[in-house]
């Protein structure tokens, strides 16, 4: 079993991951109208990929090789940031300097509404991790209160 700080570290990793997700969502919202990038073409929506962290080095305590010990649990980390490969939106705006011959501009494949929902999701997940840290602390405090009743 992990010590109480190990449990807190798991929650901290979740919070860090959600923070990185917030960075990516903020970038998506900020670039929702961006038509120029270093690679050429409009901005592509970015997405985070989370991966579970397992400490394989920790010994397996169970009797079966496929059982996990909680010692191995390490939380989550952001594996990579990937680009959304969905097509760009075409907007008719002949006055735009990046418009093509027919007057259409390629706009980023960012849906601001979708980003807002992801934002709320990230916020709630972050808060959930805070709750789990508070619960961890409550466990410890309760244990320290043994015999005081």
């Amino acid at each position, binding site marked *: 079993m992990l010590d109480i*700080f190990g449990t*807190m570290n798991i*929650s*901290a990793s979740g*919070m860090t991951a959600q*923070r990185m997700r917030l960075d990516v969502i903020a970038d998506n919202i900020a670039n929702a109208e961006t038509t120029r990038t270093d690679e050429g073409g409009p901005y592509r929506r970015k997405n985070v990929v989370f991966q579970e962290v397992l400490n394989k080095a920790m010994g397996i305590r169970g009797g079966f090789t496929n059982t996990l010990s909680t010692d191995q649990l390490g939380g989550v980390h952001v594996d990579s940031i990937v680009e959304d490969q969905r097509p760009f939106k075409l907007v008719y705006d002949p006055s735009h300097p990046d418009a093509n011959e027919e007057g259409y501009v390629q706009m980023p494949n960012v849906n601001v509404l979708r980003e807002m929902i992801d934002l709320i999701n990230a916020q709630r997940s972050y808060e959930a991790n*805070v709750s789990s*840290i508070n619960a961890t602390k409550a466990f410890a405090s309760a244990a*320290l209160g043994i015999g005081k009743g």
Partner: protein
Amino acid sequence: MSNGIDPINSLTSLDPIKRLERIQNTQASQVKKGEAEPDFQKILNDALKSVNVQQKDAIQAEDDFAAGKISNIHDVIIRAEKAAMSLTMTMEVRNKIVDAYKEIMRMQL
């Protein structure tokens, strides 16, 4: 603390001879164990050191955050929380030790 006074056993062994036997056994095992066990002072010192490390880590995190080296606020708070938790734990243990000491000092001889 296997050689502490077991309340259940002391209740069941009302036979005085058995009781005496048990006390002698306990004393004998204490003498034997005393040599191999690390002394109380060392255990206390090590525990206090680890608490101190937590405190220092929390202060370091605050400094780093003020200097702009840490971008995650929660890291700072969590480290401070860990330090506070270990200090609370230390205080609880300390209170227990002081209570035990007072209890013994109050004993009528």
